[in-house]
């Protein structure tokens, strides 16, 4: 009973309850357009949450998150369309394939540090997007592949599927950050040259983390493109590789909930501006860019950082 009362006193309980109600109830009452937006947002959030582990805990700003998104998605598309596998088998297959690709990519790229790593992975995205465009017989290139079978019939169930994956990743992130593994990642972020002196095999942890987060990203790609039933190389350009990083950083790097807020801002902002500035559709990208610049320069801690600052300020005023 005391335990329940404690829960009732905590603010986070109410936040959690509100979020649950929102997630369960809202999709049933929203228009197809809003539902589609929410599904897109959720898949962006998954990619960013995976990146958040690599960036926020390990300190590696990866710009090839959408490569793994693409690998997972194309595994789904090719396995179902070309091999005739059922979509649920393909959903299990896609993280396995992405894990292998992620591990192989980790071997060369994790030798680079900080922005060298960022630019190296950006070049990797360039290579992969060129492969997608230049092999039309396999990937369908610009014209794309149509008729990817859906995992579940209803759009709302796709949303729940993604929310389930978000929860799994959230729990895994929190567990990881409290475990020995998380401590090692933070040690790598703070001083990678010092960490091996404590007998930590940094290379192994780095590669495993990178591959595991890639695998989950690949799964998100598989779900999203099964929802969309259509895939083309246009979704995986070099420009789109920045989105995941923007979501992770704008939300607040190194916090478990950051990417969720980041997704709301980065993926949601364009849609808000679509509604607000009906006569100025042409200038929409400028607004999005301005939001990114403002958030990052005003608060390097992202949206979470801003809200913490704000709460601290309000508390101070309350005390006075």
């Amino acid at each position, binding site marked *: 009973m005391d335990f329940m009362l404690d829960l009732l006193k905590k603010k986070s309980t109410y936040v959690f309850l509100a979020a649950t109600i929102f997630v369960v109830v809202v999709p049933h009452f929203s228009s197809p357009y809003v539902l589609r937006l929410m599904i897109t947002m959720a898949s962006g959030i998954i990619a960013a949450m995976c990146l958040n582990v690599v*960036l926020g805990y390990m300190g590696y*700003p990866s710009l090839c998150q959408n490569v793994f998104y693409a690998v997972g998605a194309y595994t789904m598309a090719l396995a179902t369309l070309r091999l005739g596998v059922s979509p649920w088998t393909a959903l299990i297959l896609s993280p396995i394939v992405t894990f292998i690709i992620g591990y192989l990519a980790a071997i*060369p790229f994790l*030798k*680079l540090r*900080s*922005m*060298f790593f*960022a*630019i*190296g992975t*950006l*070049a*990797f995205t*360039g*290579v992969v997007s*060129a*492969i997608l*465009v*230049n092999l039309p017989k396999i990937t369908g290139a610009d014209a794309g592949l149509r008729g990817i079978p859906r995992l579940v019939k209803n759009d709302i169930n796709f949303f729940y599927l993604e929310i389930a994956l978000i929860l799994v990743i959230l729990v895994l992130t929190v567990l990881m950050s409290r475990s020995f593994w998380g401590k090692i990642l933070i040690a790598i972020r703070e001083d990678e040259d010092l960490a091996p002196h404590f007998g930590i095999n940094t290379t192994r942890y780095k590669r495993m983390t990178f591959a595991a987060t890639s695998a989950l990203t690949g799964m998100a790609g598989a779900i999203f493109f099964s929802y969309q039933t259509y895939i083309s190389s246009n979704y995986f350009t*070099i*420009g789109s590789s*920045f989105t995941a*990083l*923007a979501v992770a*950083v*704008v939300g607040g*790097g190194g916090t478990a909930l950051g990417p969720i807020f980041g997704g709301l801002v980065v993926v949601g902002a364009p849609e808000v501006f679509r509604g607000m500035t009906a006569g100025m559709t*042409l*200038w*929409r*990208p*400028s607004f*999005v*860019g*301005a*939001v*990114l*610049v403002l958030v*990052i*320069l005003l608060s*390097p801690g992202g949206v979470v950082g801003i809200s913490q600052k704000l709460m601290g300020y309000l508390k101070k005023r309350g005390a006075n």
Partner: protein
Amino acid sequence: MITQVILNALVQSAILMIMALGLTLIFGVMKIPNLTHGAMYAIGAFIHYSLIEWFEVPFVPALFFAALLTFGGGAILERVFFRKGGGSPVVAIIAGIGLTYVIVNVITNVWGAWPLRIQTPFRHVVRIGSGAISSHNIVTFTVAISIAALLYALLKWTKFGCAIRAVSQDREEASLIGVNVNTVGLVTFAAGTMLASIGGMFAAPITAASPTMGGTAELMGFAIIILGGMGSLGGAIIGAFLLGFVDVFVTSYISGGWGGAVAFVFMIVVILIRPSGLFGKKGRQI
């Protein structure tokens, strides 16, 4: 065919070199990757275009004018946005992405999304063996080499160049011996941006100017400076010629779509063997 391909590769490499020099200069001093470089490459070409078409300035004076304008633009970018980032590469990357959205959007709205061709006064075609090269390309190549030489001389023999080298080696030490680190950063960033826009101005008559023309060029620029060693001028020059040749040769002999990809794979292989690039050394940059 081989003569023609080599001539094309030389011109392509020269344009890449102008841009990569700017990138490596900014990286050396500020230690951040400048993701607005591609956008400034494009805006240089468009300002040049408007000076010629709207204000009827001749080609060459317009070039100098546009370069000055982008120098000012770069100074504003550094003062207003990048200095606030405090040298954090992740902040610089996100701010760069946001600014690129804005700049590319402004270009699209002001000049339109369709490619524009700038008429160059250098239209004479010179035949060399079995190949042909337009005099615009010869001018481009000459300008690129002169810029590299001029930059080397400025860095080597002027007091301000010495200050730039000092800051790129050790920011704190440099400020201790009385170098105004902020001014050096401002001027370097502005100069680097100006180099990007000069690259765009010379590329536009060859490839036509479009709002997104900077994206691929920027990525190639980063590949070049990673290959050459970030912050190294000589590395940027060698890297530009290596990747420019790989790009043009693959494009000419295999297929148009694979040029950039093979160049990136080449860069990835090199950094696997030497993670600091061909000429990158710890502690000594520019």
